[in-house]
């Protein structure tokens, strides 16, 4: 830089414009990210709501809101990893049904909660592996593979549950229902899980080679391959992670409901994808934020809650959530054009 400035007046001018495009400071980088602006929107909506509704800021309401979005936030974390690799996982909703039923069946049969949890997560990992292997090694399109899995997982959960509701969870029923339905220090347990997972994802994305490779694969899979990154294994891993998040969310949600049917998680995949995208994940791959997942999920739940409290017909809910998805993507487009 300094060297080339000595080359003469003509170059100095060019170099000045290059160096005036300063490296970003931490704060500067942050305000350029989608999650930051969504967080601003959340705070703005929160302020407005606390003025026009007496109920909004009550402990009870905030408790419900945070618990409701925790399940979606957990799944959106896994979905974000998938989307960063330029993939998509449509099977998470059905997988909730399947893993929830698997956990329920195990515990209904009299096994401990440990076995129930293992059945739940084991099922999730197997399904994630199938998705990942088909996509990474057989080079099938993520959309098609996971769409097929959406149908198959739902069907299997109907078959193994014999289309019956499960509401008896064996010897550890109380513990199981406490984990999903109760709280520690006034914060719902699923929210704690979401907080811990979010921190884990932030660290994993930033400080592990796995995280670095996930972003590299999404940015340019060919270049990643040439750099010696095991691209196929990275792709399999993100689908296993996404499936595991769905399994975990199902385990918590069944505990909260105190019962499970094979309809658990029906159409949730759309909400989860929406949460990831609102949180800044780019469906083209290469861009996504761990903190975006809970923030995106929070915004969606907040809109739902606000419409309810403001007395607007519940039939409008989907409209506003859809509107926000489009606005979020539009804002990102505009910001990128600016830089």
């Amino acid at each position: 830089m300094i060297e080339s400035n000595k080359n003469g007046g003509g170059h100095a001018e060019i170099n000045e414009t290059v160096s005036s495009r300063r490296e970003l400071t931490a704060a500067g980088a942050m305000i350029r990210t989608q999650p930051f602006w969504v967080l601003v929107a959340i705070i703005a909506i929160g302020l407005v709501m606390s003025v026009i509704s007496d109920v909004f800021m009550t402990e009870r309401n905030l408790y419900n809101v945070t618990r409701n979005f925790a399940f979606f936030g957990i799944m959106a974390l896994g979905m974000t990893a998938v989307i960063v690799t330029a993939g998509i996982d449509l099977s998470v909703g059905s997988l909730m049904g399947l893993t929830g039923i698997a956990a329920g069946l195990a515990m209904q049969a009299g096994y401990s909660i440990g076995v129930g949890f293992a059945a739940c997560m084991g099922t999730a990992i197997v399904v994630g592996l199938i998705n990942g292997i088909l996509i990474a090694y057989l080079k099938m399109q993520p959309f098609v593979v996971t769409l097929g899995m959406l149908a198959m997982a739902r069907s299997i959960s109907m078959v193994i549950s014999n289309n019956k509701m499960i509401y008896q969870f064996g010897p550890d029923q109380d513990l199981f229902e406490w984990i999903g339905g109760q709280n520690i220090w006034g914060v719902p347990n699923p929210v704690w899980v979401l907080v811990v997972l979010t921190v884990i994802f932030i660290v994993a994305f930033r400080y592990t080679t796995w995280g670095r490779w996930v972003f590299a694969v999404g940015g340019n899979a060919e270049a990643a391959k040439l750099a010696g990154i095991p691209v196929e294994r990275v792709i399999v891993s993100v689908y296993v992670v996404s499936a595991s998040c769905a399994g975990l969310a199902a385990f918590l949600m069944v505990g909260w409901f105190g019962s499970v049917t094979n309809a658990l998680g029906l159409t949730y995949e759309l909400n989860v994808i929406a949460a990831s995208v609102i949180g800044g994940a780019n469906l083209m791959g290469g861009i996504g934020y761990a903190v975006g997942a809970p923030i995106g999920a929070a915004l969606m739940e907040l809109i739902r809650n606000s419409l309810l409290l403001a007395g607007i017909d519940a039939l409008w809910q989907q409209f506003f959530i859809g509107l926000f998805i489009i606005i979020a993507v539009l804002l990102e487009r505009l910001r990128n054009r600016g830089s």
Partner: protein
Amino acid sequence: MRGVSKSFGAIQALQSVDFDIVAGEVLGLMGDNGAGKSTLVKIIAGNYPPSAGEIVLEGTRVRFSRPLDARQCGIEIVYQDLALCNNLTAAANVFLGRELKKSIGPLRYIDHGAMYKRASKLFAELKSETRPRDVVRQMSGGQRQAVAIARTRLSDPKIVLMDEPTAAISVRQVAEVLDLIRQLRDSNHAVVLISHRMPDVFSVCDRVAVLRRGRKVADKRVFETSPEEITGLITGAIESA
């Protein structure tokens, strides 16, 4: 390389090509589109194995089944399309696949600071104004080139293959890249420069080889030939030399 051939189905991309690459020498590899240059590069880089023939490196026969094998044998490649991840920073690209790590007890994590520092030094050596923290998407052609070249400097490679390194950059930056090639040669590396640009080849190469339709038609020292002769060899106006 001895008698290296490669065919894709009925298409014979390379026919029994022999090559010597010597440390401390820059070999220019020229040829028209479809002459087999890229195929040759990909064989040396380990992207695919030759259909026939062998590669001997320092007296031992080597077989590469993937790019990593070639890299471990000391062969670094600068690809024509540069093979960079646009969404990552310059430093992240330089260290892609061999990230620097730090440990706290049993935990190992990516050491961003060390990578920025090391990348910064590499860019300074290359006299490039590239900044390690910049995202590649926002960079100029020359800066991208610097990132791709900096990557080969991480290890101390025996052979550096450069596929059209000067195709997409400004005149001033071309001079910088050529300087770098000379620098590599003087530090006793073997450099293979694949290029369409005659002036570049003649200004920096010690030896020039020409491929035409999958055959090597010439392999001469630069001072024994001329741009006119090479052009004739490339187009086929001169059969061989």
